[in-house]
């Protein structure tokens, strides 16, 4: 407690803190270590981090993971139910390890206009891992000729999670859908975030006329019902744009409307932070306005921003379903979870093919929950005051 070098002769003893023996690791830890130590304590957040990472890996390596092209239709297996996967097969005297999907028998019922499927236990479909496939480029770069999982008996049905009305593999579609839903959606959220923080920040920091103006704009944007806005703006997007760009544009449009609530909250925080001594101190240190705002003020409500963002992501994914409902969403052949959910939006799917609904629905729920709990964990970890 006494070997501190000072330039001033007799040193002042650092404050004794014998009480704090237990929490020394936290107290002296560097900021990233501290962050990680705290984050790790939030079990659910760690699990969520893994889930989110997995989801992104799936999206990145969709070509490798999905057994089929998401748009490959197959007339024989429209509305085929999920076959699931089994690991062991009876074999002569006992059972042996043989991953397989339950067999399916198909008949056409022409009166009711549908295909009728029956489980066919006699005829399981052998499944293999790292099976050869048509050549493709992984993530658009690495040439590959193998897929993670696939049927070893081509020609037999292989629909892990069922097929849709065109006999397309739902599993593959959900895997590919993750790409759009987990990327462009987030871009929109990020856009709202930037706009919200910047405009809310300006409004709260400078106050006065510019504040009044921004407040009016926000009030105005909030008071226009969103659907006509979407429809009007979406209709103004040129027709000859490729689908992804069109959709990206629409996402931007949604986020142009979505920033307002964040901006209002940010403004409130700024109003109260602006008079805080530490902000004043930063100004007296000679920091520029931008630095004062971004480096000193914004981090103070990082936790709030995180929670707003985690709530915004499902809204974004779902806004896309609403857009599809209105006919202004993604155009085929692009798939996203929103498109899948929209396609499940009919009585036929609800009553006779519920997997069309549960599979993409489950994906959205898992992503939303994981992102939320991850957000919770990040928020707690980012807060130096939390226990």
């Amino acid at each position: 407690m006494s070997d501190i070098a000072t330039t001033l002769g007799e040193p002042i003893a650092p404050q004794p803190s014998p009480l704090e023996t237990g929490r020394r690791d936290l107290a002296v830890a560097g900021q990233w270590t501290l962050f990680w130590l705290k984050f790790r304590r939030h079990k659910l957040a760690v699990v969520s981090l893994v889930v989110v990472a997995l989801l992104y890996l799936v999206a990145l390596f969709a070509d490798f993971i999905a057994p089929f092209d998401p748009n490959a239709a197959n007339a024989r297996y429209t509305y085929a139910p999920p076959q699931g996967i089994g690991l062991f097969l009876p074999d002569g005297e006992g059972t042996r390890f043989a991953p397989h999907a339950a067999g399916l028998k198909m008949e056409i019922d022409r009166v009711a206009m549908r295909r009728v499927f029956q489980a066919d236990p006699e005829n399981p479909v052998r499944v293999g891992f790292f099976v050869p496939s048509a050549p493709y480029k992984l993530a658009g770069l690495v040439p590959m000729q193998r897929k993670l999982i696939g049927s070893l008996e081509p020609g037999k049905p292989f629909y892990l999670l069922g097929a849709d009305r065109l006999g397309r593999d739902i599993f593959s579609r959900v895997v590919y859908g993750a790409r759009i839903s987990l990327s462009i959606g987030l871009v929109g959220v990020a856009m709202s975030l930037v706009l919200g923080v910047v405009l809310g920040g300006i409004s709260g920091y400078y106050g006065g006329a510019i504040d009044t103006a921004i407040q009016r704009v926000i009030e105005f944007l909030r008071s226009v019902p969103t659907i006509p806005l979407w429809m009007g703006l979406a209709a103004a997007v040129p027709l000859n744009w490729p689908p992804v760009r069109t959709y990206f544009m629409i996402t931007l449009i949604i986020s142009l409307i979505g920033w307002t609530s964040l901006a209002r909250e940010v403004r409130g925080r700024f109003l109260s932070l602006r008079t805080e001594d530490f902000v004043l101190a930063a100004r007296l240190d000679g920091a520029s306005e931008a630095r004062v705002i971004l480096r000193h003020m914004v981090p103070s409500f990082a936790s709030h921003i995180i929670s707003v963002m985690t709530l915004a992501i499902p809204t974004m994914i779902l806004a896309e379903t609403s857009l599809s409902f209105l006919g202004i969403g993604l155009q085929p052949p692009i798939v996203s979870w929103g498109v899948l959910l929209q396609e499940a939006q009919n009585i036929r799917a609800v009553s006779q093919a519920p997997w069309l609904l549960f599979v993409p629905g489950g994906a959205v729920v898992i992503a939303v929950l994981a992102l939320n709990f991850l957000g919770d964990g990040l928020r707690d970890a980012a807060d130096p005051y939390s226990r």
Partner: protein
Amino acid sequence: MTDTPDAAIAPDAAAIPELVLEVRDLQTHFENRTGVLKAVDGVSFDVRRGRTLAVVGESGSGKSVTARSILQIVDRPGRIVGGSMRLHRQDGTSVDLAALDPRGREIRAVRGREIAMIFQEPMSSLSPVHTIGNQIEEALGVHLRLSGAEARRRAVELLSQVEIPNAAAAADRYTFEFSGGMRQRAMIAMALACNPSMLIADEPTTALDVTTQAEILDLIAKLQREHGMGVLFITHDMGVVAEIADEVAVMHAGRLVETGPTDGIFHAPRADYTRMLIRSARKLEQKAEIRLDRPARTAPAAPLIEVRSLSMTFGKGPTPLRAVDDVSLAVAPGETLGIVGESGSGKTTMGRCLLRVYEPSSGSIDYRRADGSITDLVTADRRTLKDCRREIRMIFQDPVSSLNPRMTVAQIVGEPLYVNGIAKGRELDERVSALLAQVGLEPAWRERYPHAFSGGQRQRIVIARAIALKPRLIVADEATAALDVSLRAQMLDLLIRLQDELDLSYVFISHDIGVIRYMCDRVAVMYRGRIVETGPTDQVCDDPQHGYTKALLSAIPRPDPRERRLHTRFRYTA
């Protein structure tokens, strides 16, 4: 009100007054995943009827936790893990508070009814959205089952008892409409609502200036006499202890290091820590030793900064508040100018005007740059102002709020160096380490966040930031108010030494005349925005001219129980 003072508690009674609370081996721990914090570690003491037990000790030593433990209102994850706290009632029964369920009916019956508490932070301890009256009536409703009208009458009565003017109207007002002192008094009224047999007062006067503090202390003493309450009084101000305590308990690091009658503690301390405490308290009674050693100043140099007829008003409309009113003063290079005055007299505002944090409404601030040129800060343009602000630095009144909780100490201290482009990368890191070492902080701790430091350490971080740019003048606003005496003395010494080393001038704002006497060459007394008296420190302290200065000096409690004098103080009415 109903009970008359008991003969048994008269000060001259030979018999030891009956016990109210008997605390034995209290242990309160904060558990978290990384370990256990033993905030209170085996504390034992007694509180008697009509007597005051003062608890002193450094910041963070467990005083507040002890107090909260008694009512079982320690915040999670705090938990009472051992010991007993026996409450003796006048009907002869007694109950061990430690054994009660913290959410149960029994402990609730004790809280507010038998043991009441005044909290440390009066500003935030009252609900922002309920009227003061409502909050006082609540206790009456809960414990005495008074009807609405009756409770209200009693609440008004209590408010007038604590000398809140126009109590009936005040009861309908909200917390934020009350000044700090009024809030403190409202808290006291609330605590006294049900005539408790014991009062816990946790630093009830830290936020107040000496004159107001004196009044509050008077009030508590009066009520204690009238109701025969036992009082547990937590403070770090040895003067107050000397003034009011019958017994003193000294805490250090979660333990009691010494307990005994007040006189004994002050004049025959046994524990090392107590001795140091008393020594520091005494030391702050006089001029700093370091300053005594300084060579006498030669002919007065041209002033570094000269303020003329500075005024500053808050608010517009018909009754703007003139927070600074026609103030003129000057500071010579290497000199320390003290500003004293009661709370709200405009000291902080004046200090901030010097850096033009607030825009003065009139007057001039002539600042002599290092090259000898003179700049009027009131009219300076942005660039000049920015340059001047590198030379004039500020130490904020409240170290906690002036440190960004989300930046590490290295970032905070390095900020002025970084944004002014003086250093970055490795060099910045080295400079920061050197600065921390200079103010006596372990450079290895620079990656920690401010919350991981004690109050005194935080104060030093603020100082490190202030000296980072090698300033010529530091405006130090109550730089030591939040510290306990021993720390305070160390801190002042540090500032004085820095002054010698860097040839600094200080504008030293404080409401504590002791600190001023210790630290300053000259002193200006502020009262309601005006400077009422200026002069060399010794002259002002020993021979005050203005009535207000006299009142101020007389209200300062001396850290010696043999010199109690509060009841003899002057009152100044303008």
